[in-house]
C-alpha cells in the first residue's frame, strides 16, 4: 500500500525489513497471541486443553465467526454494520417460527428476510449516500423493534419444532458440532471469493480508495449493496444456527453482538478504514475473544466484569499497536 509511495523516498534495507515485520505483525499478530494463550492456558489449567472444552470453544466461536465473516466484508469496504446483533436475534426467532415448515422453512425464512434487510440497508448506503454508521444504527433499532413486535414485546420465545433443524445445531461429527463446520466453510468460501474473485478484489479496491475505484469503472454501488447483503445473510444464518443449537429463538439475544464482531475483525488485523484485512485474521480474533472468556471462566473466581475489562483492554492494546505499526510502515 505505502511501499510504492513515491514520496517515501529511497528506503534502506533495514527500513524494508522493519516495514515487512510490521506488516507481518499486523496480519498474523492475533494468531500468534492466540497460540501463546492456548499454550499458557494448557499449562495453567488442566481442564482447559481437554477435547470437550476445546470443542465447546469451537461451538461458541462458530456463531460469532459467521457474523464476523460478513462484518469483515463490510469493514473492508470502509463501512460498518451495527445491525448484525438485531438481525442475529431476528434470524433466531424466524428460524423457530419457520421450523413449523420443516428444515427448509427454518433456514429459508430467516435468510430471505435478512437478505431483504441487508439489501435495503445496502441500497440506502450505496444509492442514498448516507453514512453506513447511521443507516445500520437505524437498522439496529428498527430490526430489534421488529423482533419485539414478532414476539409480543419479547415476552414469548418461539421453540424450534423441527427435529432436523435441531439436529443441525446440536449434531456433528468427530466431536465437533455442525455450526463449527458451517463457520469454517463460510471462512473458506469468503476467503476464496475475497482473494480469487473479481468481486472480492473490487471489495478491497473500494475500501482502499473509493474515488479511485469509481475512476477505474468498478461498480462501487453494487459492491456496497452486496457486502451489506452478505453481512445480513451471515447474521441471519448465525441466528438461525443459534436457535437450532438452543432449540429456541430467544428475542433478546445478540444485544452488543455487533461490538464483539467489530472487535474480532479489528483484532484480526482488518483496518477499519477498509482496503486491507483477511478472514483468517477474523477467525483468530473471534477465537481469541472466546478463549479469553473461557480462560477467565477456568479461573472460576473471576466474573464477567473481569472478562469485559480484559476484552476491552485487549482491543485497546491491539488498536494502539496497529496504529503504531501503521505509522512505522508509513515512514
Amino acid at each position, binding site marked *: 500500500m505505502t511501499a510504492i509511495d513515491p514520496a517515501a523516498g529511497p528506503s534502506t534495507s533495514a527500513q524494508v525489513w522493519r516495514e515487512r515485520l510490521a506488516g507481518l505483525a499486523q496480519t498474523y499478530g492475533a494468531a500468534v497471541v492466540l497460540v501463546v494463550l492456548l499454550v499458557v492456558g494448557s499449562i495453567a489449567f488442566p481442564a482447559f486443553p481437554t477435547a470437550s472444552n476445546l470443542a465447546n470453544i469451537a461451538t461458541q466461536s462458530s456463531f460469532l465467526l459467521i457474523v464476523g465473516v460478513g462484518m469483515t466484508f463490510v469493514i473492508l469496504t470502509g463501512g*460498518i454494520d451495527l445491525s448484525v446483533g438485531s438481525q442475529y436475534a431476528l434470524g433466531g426467532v424466524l428460524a423457530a417460527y419457520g421450523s413449523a415448515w420443516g428444515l427448509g422453512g427454518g433456514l429459508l425464512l430467516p435468510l430471505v428476510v435478512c437478505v431483504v434487510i441487508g439489501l435495503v440497508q445496502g441500497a*440506502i448506503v450505496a444509492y*442514498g*449516500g*448516507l*453514512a453506513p*454508521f*447511521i*443507516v445500520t*444504527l*437505524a*437498522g*439496529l*433499532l*428498527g430490526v*430489534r*423493534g*421488529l*423482533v*419485539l*413486535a414478532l414476539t409480543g*414485546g419479547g415476552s414469548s420465545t418461539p421453540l424450534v419444532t423441527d427435529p432436523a433443524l435441531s439436529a443441525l445445531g446440536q449434531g456433528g461429527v468427530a466431536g465437533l458440532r455442525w455450526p463449527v463446520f458451517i463457520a469454517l466453510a463460510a471462512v473458506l468460501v469468503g476467503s476464496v471469493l475475497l482473494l480469487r474473485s473479481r468481486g472480492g478484489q473490487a471489495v478491497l479496491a473500494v475500501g482502499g480508495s473509493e474515488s479511485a475505484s469509481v475512476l477505474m469503472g468498478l461498480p462501487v454501488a453494487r459492491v456496497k449493496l452486496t457486502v451489506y447483503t452478505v453481512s445480513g445473510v451471515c447474521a441471519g444464518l448465525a441466528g438461525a444456527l443459534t436457535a437450532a443449537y438452543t432449540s429456541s429463538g430467544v428475542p433478546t439475544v445478540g444485544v452488543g453482538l455487533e*461490538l464483539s464482531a*467489530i*472487535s474480532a475483525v*479489528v483484532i484480526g488485523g482488518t483496518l*477499519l*478504514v477498509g482496503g486491507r484485512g483477511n478472514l483468517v485474521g477474523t477467525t483468530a480474533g473471534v477465537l481469541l475473544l472466546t478463549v479469553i472468556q473461557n480462560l477467565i471462566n477456568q479461573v472460576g473466581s473471576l*466474573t*464477567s*466484569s*473481569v*472478562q*469485559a*475489562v*480484559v*476484552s*476491552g*483492554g485487549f*482491543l*485497546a492494546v491491539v*488498536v*494502539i499497536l496497529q*496504529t*503504531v505499526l501503521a*505509522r512505522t510502515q508509513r515512514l
Partner: protein
Amino acid sequence: MSQTLTVALPRRATVVGFFQRYGVYLAIVIVLVVNLAVTPNFFTLDNVRVQLVQVVPVLIVALGMALAIGTEGIDLSVGASMALAAAVIPLYIGYGVVPAALIALACSLLIGLANGVMIAVIGVQPIVATLSLMVAGRGIALLVAGEQLRSVTDPGFLALGRGAIGPLPWSVLIAAVLVAIVAVLVSRTTFGKQLVALGGSRRAAELAGLPVRRILLVTYLLSAALAGVAGVIGTARLGASVPSTLGNLVELSAITAVVVGGTPLSGGQVRVIGTVAGALLLQLITATLVKHDVSDAYSQIAQAVIILLAVYIQRGRAVQR
C-alpha cells in the same frame, strides 16, 4: 445584499435549506400540536416536568457527543462513563454530596483521558478507541461497585435528582446551565472555533498551526465529564447506584439526538440548540407513543425511521455544497 442573494437562490434549495435548518423545531411543533389534539392531559405542568426530567441524562450526554462529532469523531464510551460515575458515588457519599460528585466526575474524566490519549496522541480511530473503553469501562465500573446495586440515601444527594426550586427541578436547571456553557464554548471561545475548524478539515487545522492534539484531548475529556454529570444525576434520580444498566445504549440515543438536531456526522459543525431540540423531539415522540400504549417494538421502529429521515434531509446539504 443578503436579500438579493436569497432571491437569487433556486426555490427548491431554499425549501430544502429551511427544512435542514429548522426541520427539528418544526417536528417538535408538529408533535406538540398532534398531542394537543389526541392526548388528554399532555399540557399539564406535571407532564411537562416529567418530560424535562426524563430528557436530562440523554441531553447532557448528547452535548458532549455533539462536541466529539463536531471534530469528526464519536464517543461510544459515554455509557461507561455514566456507569463509572454511578459506581463511585456510594463509596464516597459519606464525605458529603459535593466531594462524592467531584470524585465521580474525576473517575469519568479518567475514561475521557484514556480516550483522548488514544485518539489525540496515538492516533487511533475514535470509534474503536471509545469502543474499547465502552466495553472495559463498564467492566471496571462493575468491579468498583462489587457487582451489586447499592442504594444511596443521602437526602442532599437525592435532592439533586428529585428536588426542585419552585417549579423547576434541580436536574433541569443543571442541564440548562450546561447547555448555556457548551453553547458559549462552541460559538464564543477560541477553543470552540478551533474545534469546528479541526472537524472541518484536520489537515488544514494542522497546517494552520492549531493545537490539534490538545483540542481532541479536551473534547473527549469534556464528553466524559458531561457523561459523568449525567451519571451522577441519573443515580440521584434512581436513589441507587446501578452500574450494570445505567447508561446502557445511551450512546445511541445521544448520537441520534445530535444527528437529528442537524450536526453532520462528517464534523465541522456543532449545533448545540439543535442537539437540545433533537433530544427533546426523541423524548416527546417516545412519550407520545407510551401514552397511547404503543409497544416498545413500534416506538423503536419509529425512531429508526426518524433517524433515517433526518439524515436523508441533511444529505441534501452536502450535495448542495
